[in-house]
Each structure stands twice: as C-alpha cells, then as structure tokens.
C-alpha cells in the first residue's frame, strides 16, 4: 500500500485517479466508439455546412431559378457536376439550395412538435391521473392518422407555403413527441430529488422545467434527430405530390417529381435529388442511433 501511495506525491493525487469523468464526457466517449454514428455525424455536419454556404457555392437567382433553355438536359460534366434539368438549371445549385429548405423546415417543424408535444407530454406525465388521461386520449386520436395524411389535410386546408408546411408537419409529429416526453417524465418524476424539490416549496412549474425536463434530455435528443429525418422525408413526399414547396423553388421532392418525366433518357436528373434525400436521412438515422446507444447506460 505504501508503495502505491508513494507513486502519487500527495493523497489528493492518489484519490484523483478515482475521480469520475463527467457524464457528458463519458457519453461522448461512448459515442465516438460507434464508427457508424461518427460517420453519420460527419455527413450531417457536411450537409449543414453546404446549406449554410449555399449562396457562395451557387447563385440562387441566376443558377438555381433562372430558366436557361439552350442549356437543358446536359449530362454531368465539370461545368455542371450533376448536370442540368429540363429547364437548363444547374442541378447542383438546386440541390444545395434545396438543402436549406429541407433543413430549415425539418428542424422548425420538429421544434414546433417538441414545444407543443413536449409541454403536453410533460404536463400529462408529471400530474398523471385525469389530466394525463384527457391529454393522452386526445393525442391518441391524432396518432391514429398517418403523419403524411394529417400533414396533407392541413396543407390542403390552409394552402401550400413554407410556414403552413412547417406547421402541418409540426402538428402531425406533436403526438409522438408528447408520448416520448411523457414516458421520460414519468420515470424521472418518481426519483427522490423531485420529491425533495417539492419538500422545499418549489412550484410545480419550476420543478417540471428545472428538475424533470432537464433530466429527460437524453431520450428527447435522440427522438429529435430521428424525427428531423422523418420530417425531411415528409417535406419531400409532400412536394413530390405537388402539395409542398411549389415549382420554381428548388426542393428535393419537387425536383424528383419534375425530373420523373425525363428519367428514362436522363437518369442523372433524379439521381442527384434522390441521393441527397437518401444521404441526409441516413446520416440523421445513424446519428440518432448512435446517440441512443451512447445515452443508454445499460449498453456501456
């Protein structure tokens, strides 16, 4: 024992080796060990960077929107990496600008769903009893309808524009988030520190925001990443059937739709937007799965 202590000059240093790493650090290390998740993270960061720098990569008005008939249906070349579409627009420029719409609407709609669904789920899970029953049965009604159908109905009723679409997708995801948050809140609610907070006179609102929700962070983050992927897919699906983003504005779904007619002779025209959707969804799913594994202490 003496020799062991000697190795460390002071007692303090001896005990330092037992000091636990912070939970965040531990989670991050576990995440890094998952190669697929790290790949997903890198691809996703790349997509975000592309979306942010889109105006630098290609001019929106002259390259992504302006019709240039003599240039139409050019195969991929050094000048147009992904070729040009049936109106002579550079597909690369349209993909890059399309990423902005997909990401913004994807995150905004999930944020909306998280805000409404999270609040309802937290209230239902924390108070339980009748309040829980009423809120969750209402959510169950919405859950009966497929997301796309619900979003479709909302868009059809209120008209197709960016804001309506965000609201439509956000609302259609709300019941799912309310379920996730509710179950997370119910686990945390039973832990003694919540009771301890009540015992020092904290208000319920304060306890929900400051003690309960903050400890539900893990499952919520995982669901957010997975649902952003799902939201992006829904945007593209709606645009594909003509109820989402309208024609001149570049969006992956409507690019697929308009390119469909030329698919036989010019396959590259649908290849690029299809790949863009595929890669984005894949990266978010890998990321989400990796986060779920990293945040689940049982899989240590």
């Amino acid at each position, binding site marked *: 024992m003496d020799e062991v202590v000697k190795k460390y000059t002071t007692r303090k240093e001896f005990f330092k080796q037992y*000091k*636990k790493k*912070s*939970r965040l650090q531990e989670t991050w290390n576990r995440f890094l060990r998952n190669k697929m998740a790290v790949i997903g993270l890198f691809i996703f960061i790349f997509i975000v960077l592309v979306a942010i720098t889109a105006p630098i990569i290609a001019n929106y008005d002259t390259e992504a929107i302006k019709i240039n008939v003599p240039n139409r249906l050019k195969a991929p070349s050094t000048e147009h990496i992904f070729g040009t579409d049936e109106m002579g627009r550079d597909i690369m420029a349209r993909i890059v600008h399309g990423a902005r719409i997909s990401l913004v609407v994807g995150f905004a709609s999930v944020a909306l769903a998280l805000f409404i669904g999270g609040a309802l789920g937290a209230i239902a899970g924390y108070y*339980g*009893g009748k309040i829980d029953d009423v809120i969750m049965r209402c959510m169950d009604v919405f859950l009966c309808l497929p997301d796309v159908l619900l979003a479709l109905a909302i868009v059809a009723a209120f008209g197709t524009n960016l804001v309506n679409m965000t609201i439509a997708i956000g609302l259609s995801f709300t019941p799912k988030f309310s379920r996730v948050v509710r179950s997370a809140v119910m686990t945390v609610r039973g*832990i*003694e*520190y919540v*009771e*301890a*907070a*009540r*015992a*020092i*006179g*904290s*208000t319920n609102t304060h306890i929900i925001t*400051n*003690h309960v929700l*903050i*400890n539900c*962070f893990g499952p919520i983050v995982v669901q957010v990443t997975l649902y952003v992927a799902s939201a992006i897919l829904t945007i593209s699906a709606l645009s594909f059937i003509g109820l989402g983003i309208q024609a001149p504005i570049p969006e992956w779904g409507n690019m697929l739709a308009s390119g469909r007619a030329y698919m036989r002779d010019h396959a590259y025209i649908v290849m690029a937007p299809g790949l863009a959707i595929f890669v984005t969804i894949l990266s978010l799913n890998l990321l989400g799965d990796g986060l779920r594994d990293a945040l689940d202490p049982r899989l240590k």
Partner: protein
Amino acid sequence: MEIKKMNEQENTLEIKNLVIHYISDEEVVKAVNGVDIIIKAGKTLGLVGETGAGKTTTALSILNLVPEPQGKILSGEVLLEGRSVLTMSELELEEIRGDKVAMIFQDPMTSLNPVHTVGAQIAESIEIHRKVSKEEALKQAKEMLELVGIPGERSNEYPYQFSGGMKQRVVIAIALTCSPDLLIADEPTTALDVTIQAQVLKLINELRRKYHMSMLMITHDLGIVAEVCDEVSIAYAGRIVEHGTLEDIFDNLRHPYTKGLFDALPDIEIRRSELKPIKGLMPDPTNLPSGCPFHPRCDYVMEVCSQSLPENKWLSETHCVQCHLYKDTNESRL
C-alpha cells in the same frame, strides 16, 4: 428569537388520529391507522418501527406530500404550530415547505438532482423563501456548505463529484438553509456506512441545537434514538404502540413489541449469544389481523387480543402504551 421560542412552550407539531390508506383498483394498503404524535418546541421525537410501519407516510403527511392519487388521508388532523396543514391551499403549502418544515431524505444518492450544482440546489430554497437575488442566494448557499463542513468553493461542483457522506451533508444544508422550525429526518443515515453515520448524526444534532429546531427523527436504529431523541414513539402497522421519554422506553418498556425490538439487538458483552428475532413477519398492510395487529407475533397473546383493538393507556404523565396487558395494571407484565 431563541428566548421567544423558549417562552411559548407550545407544540411545534400535533398529529391527531391520522389515518392514511393507499387505495388502488386491486387493494387498499392501510399504511397509517390512527397515529398521534406531539412534538414540543425544540424537542426531538424518534419514530421507530420496521419497514412498512407507516413512518415515512406519516412524515410526508406533515408536508401534505402523501403521493396522489392513491394516497388518501381518510381522517385526522396535522397541526403545525396550531395551523392545520391538511386544509391549506397549494400556495400556503409551498410557503411552509422548506421554510417552516424541512425534510432530510433517506437516500442522498437520489435526492440530489444530478444536473445542477450543489450550490444551485441549496440556493433554490433560499431564492424561493427569502426572495433574494440569485447571486445573494448562491453566496448564502456557500455559507451553508461551510456550516456543514464542506469548503465553500465546492459549491460549483456537481453531486457526482461528492461522496455519499458529503452528499448527505449537502442534503442537510438544503434542509437547514431557511432555518425551519421543524426538521423531519427520514432515516438520514441508512444509506451511509457506520463511521459516516456518526458524523452526520453529530452534525444534525449540533445544528439542531444551534437553531433550536424541533425534529422528527425517523429510524429503525435504536442506537440513533438513544443518541439524539428526547421522546420515542414505537410504530407498528400504522399505529403508535408505545410512546414515552427516553427513560420510559429504554428502562421501563412495557409493550411486547418494544421488548422484541430490544431483544433483537446484538449484545456486545455476550458475543456468543444468539440474536432473538421477533417471530413471524410484519403483517400484510392490505390484510391486517383482527384486533391488535401484533397479536399473531406476540409472546403474551391473550384471547382478547384477536378480538378488540387495545386503547391508549397512560401509565404516567409521559408514558403511554397500547396493549391489553395493561388494562388494569401499570406494572410491567413482561
């Protein structure tokens, strides 16, 4: 302030005939079945009993925190300095919790929130009740940490960086920040090892004297009772079967159950002696035996025991027992 409290010799806490059942669809758990407790200002009452005797439920009722919706307070009164807790509005309750009554929880590992610094958790109570700014509250939180023997600069650290004993000190600091009139300690040392237990008990005792608080000490350790309590109530199946001063219980015990508890203690003098456990198990609270709930396990059982519930019998000014043995005598019959 101290003198004022000394003068008014009123009771800090009075619980009268409290009955609490947990009612679910399948069954009714009879947790508390008529508990009477009085704690005088500045005194410490020990509430002793096995697991499931209704100790914690009784304690939670003082803060009106009995878990809803299953927990139902069917009858009884809880008076905190003369005010009825059970009829208070949620707003009034929030004012009392942490300010007039504070609670030390059993397990320091789970009673601290892992995502907030210990300083912030102590400051929370100050912010709520003293209406001071966040900076001021954090400053006072540091002082509280010093008071329980933890360097103030550690207030920026998170609970996982503390050992079990230190966490319990933090929990004590949280409970004491607003110098409550009544401190409820719900088995404050069961999750700690023996050497740390002694330190924590000493700390609680010192601080309690310093601030002249009343205390309800819930425990199943008679050693702790001897150490810190003025009076003792022995709980069994949701009733107080014997109540008295330390001398009454330790030197003149009357109830067979109390005797059983003392017999079950190991004797340091006679190391070879076998322990004498109380035979049988704690009765199922959903299906309590008829009459005296202790009669199936009692060595002194009589016919009447299974038929009727014994009344409170006062043997002296301070000593009270619930047992048929003492119907017409005050002398020990054990």
